[in-house]
C-alpha cells in the first residue's frame, strides 16, 4: 500500500511541531510538550538509522557483480555488516536472556577492529592536513593565502616545548595570534553562523524551505 501524505498536511505538521519545540525553549510551561516531541524525534531518528542501513545494504548488494570495478569493496562491506549484526544479536541474547556480562563480543569488535582502523585513519588525516597546508600557495597565490601559510608556520614554531628549539619571542607571538586575531575571527564567524542558523530555521518554520517532497 502506498500511503502519500499530501503536502499541506505534512507542511502543517512540520511547522506546528517546530513552533511548539521553539516555544518550549522560551515558555517554561511548554517544556514538557517540547521534551515529548524531542524524544519522539530521537526515536524516529533511530528508526531512520535502521532504514538507512537497510538502504546501504541494498545499494551494495546491487553493486556486487563482475561489471563493477568496486564490487570487492561492496562485498567486504556486506560481509562486515552482516557479521557485526550477527555478533550484536548473539550478544543481546547472551546479555538479556542468559545473563552473561554485557556485550563482550561487541566490545571486542569495537576495541580490536573499529578503534584501530579509526585511529590509523586519524593518523592519515594528519598527513593529509600537512599536504593541504603545504599546497595552499600552489592553489591560490594571494595575500590571504600567504598570510594563512605564514601564520601556520609561526604557530607551529611557537609551539615547541623542548628548550633548544624554543624561542621566547615566538611563544609570545603564538599566544598573541591565538588569543587576539584567531579568537576574534572565530567569534565573528560564529556570530555569522548563528545568524545563518536562525534564518534557516525561520524559513523552515514559515514553510518556505521544505526539506520534504511537495
Amino acid at each position, binding site marked *: 500500500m502506498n500511503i502519500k501524505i499530501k503536502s499541506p498536511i505534512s507542511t502543517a505538521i512540520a511547522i506546528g511541531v517546530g513552533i511548539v519545540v521553539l516555544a518550549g525553549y522560551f515558555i517554561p510551561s511548554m517544556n514538557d510538550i517540547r521534551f515529548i516531541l524531542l524524544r519522539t*524525534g530521537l526515536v524516529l531518528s533511530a528508526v531512520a538509522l535502521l532504514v*538507512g*542501513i537497510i538502504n546501504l545494504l541494498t545499494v551494495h548488494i546491487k553493486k556486487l557483480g563482475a561489471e563493477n570495478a568496486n564490487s570487492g569493496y561492496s562485498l567486504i562491506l556486506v560481509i562486515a555488516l552482516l557479521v557485526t549484526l550477527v555478533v550484536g544479536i548473539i550478544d543481546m541474547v547472551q546479555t538479556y536472556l542468559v545473563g552473561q556480562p554485557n556485550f563482550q563480543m561487541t566490545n571486542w569488535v569495537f576495541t580490536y577492529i573499529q578503534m584501530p582502523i579509526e585511529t590509523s585513519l586519524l593518523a592519515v588525516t594528519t598527513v*593529509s592536513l600537512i599536504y593541504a597546508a603545504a599546497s595552499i600557495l600552489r592553489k591560490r597565490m594571494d595575500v590571504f593565502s600567504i598570510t594563512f601559510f605564514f601564520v601556520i608556520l609561526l604557530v607551529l614554531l611557537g609551539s615547541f616545548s623542548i628548550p633548544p628549539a624554543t624561542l621566547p619571542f615566538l611563544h609570545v607571538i603564538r599566544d598573541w595570534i591565538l588569543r587576539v586575531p584567531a579568537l576574534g575571527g572565530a567569534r565573528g564567524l560564529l556570530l555569522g553562523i548563528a545568524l545563518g542558523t*536562525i534564518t534557516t*530555521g525561520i524559513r523552515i518554520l514559515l514553510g518556505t524551505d521544505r526539506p520534504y517532497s511537495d
Partner: protein
Amino acid sequence: MSATGFTGIVVFVLFMGLMIFFSIINKDREENNVRPIPGYDKINQEINVAVEDGTQLHISLGRGGITGPESAAALAGLSLLKQVIEKSSVCDHPPVVSTGNAVISILAQDTIRGSSKAISVGDQRRNPSGELIGVTPFSYAAGALTTIRNDNVSANIHTGWFGNEITWLTTAGERQSSSTIAGTVQLPAQAVIYASASDPLIGEELFAGGAYLGAGKMHQASISTQDIIRWIIIVIILGSVVLNILGIDSFIEDILAGSM
C-alpha cells in the same frame, strides 16, 4: 517567563518580521544585489559544464542530523541540493548525492524525488541516489572517496556538517583535478577547507546558497535580515566597549544577568 525567554522571543519576532518585510518589498525586484561569492559562481559554472560534457556533480551533505546543533547546516545543504537538482535537470547524468546521517539520507531522497517530479524527470534510473555511505566520520569519508574518484564526476560540492575528515574529500577531489566547493560550520574544518578546497565557503556563506542559486525571495530576504542584525550587533559591541571605557557597564551586566 524569564528575561532570557523574553529576549529570545523578541529576537525571533525581529528576525521573522524583517524577513517577511524584505520578502514583500523585494517581491517585484528582478535583480539580485548580493556580493559575489566565488563558490556559488563556481556551482553555476560547474552545472553548465556537466550539461555540456555529459559529466555529473557529486553533492555530499555531511554527517549532520536534525536534532542537534548541526541541523541548520544539514538543512542548508538540503536547500542547496534542491536548487542544484532543479538547475541540472537537463544533464545526461543526474548528481550523485551522499550523506553520513540516516535522517538526512531520507530527507535527501525525498528532496530528490520531489524536485525530480517537479521538473518532470520521471525516469527513476536517472534520479540521483542520496544514499547513506557511513555513519562515523572516517567511514563516511572513506565511502565518499569512491564517488569522488569516479572519472565521470566533474565537481564535488560538500555542504553540511563536516569535521577535519573533510581534508580527505577535498584532497581526493584535487587529485582527480575536479573542482571542490566546500562549506561547513565547524571552525577547525573551515580552516582545513580554506587550505584544501578550490572554492571554500567560509562562515555564514554556507547558509546563503538559496539566494545565489535562485531559490526565491525569502532567501534574499534572509541575507538582508542578517545584514541588518549584523549592524545591530556591531553597534551593541561598540556601545559596550564605550560603556566599559566610561565605567558605566554595570547597567548592561544587570540586563544580561536578568536582574533588571
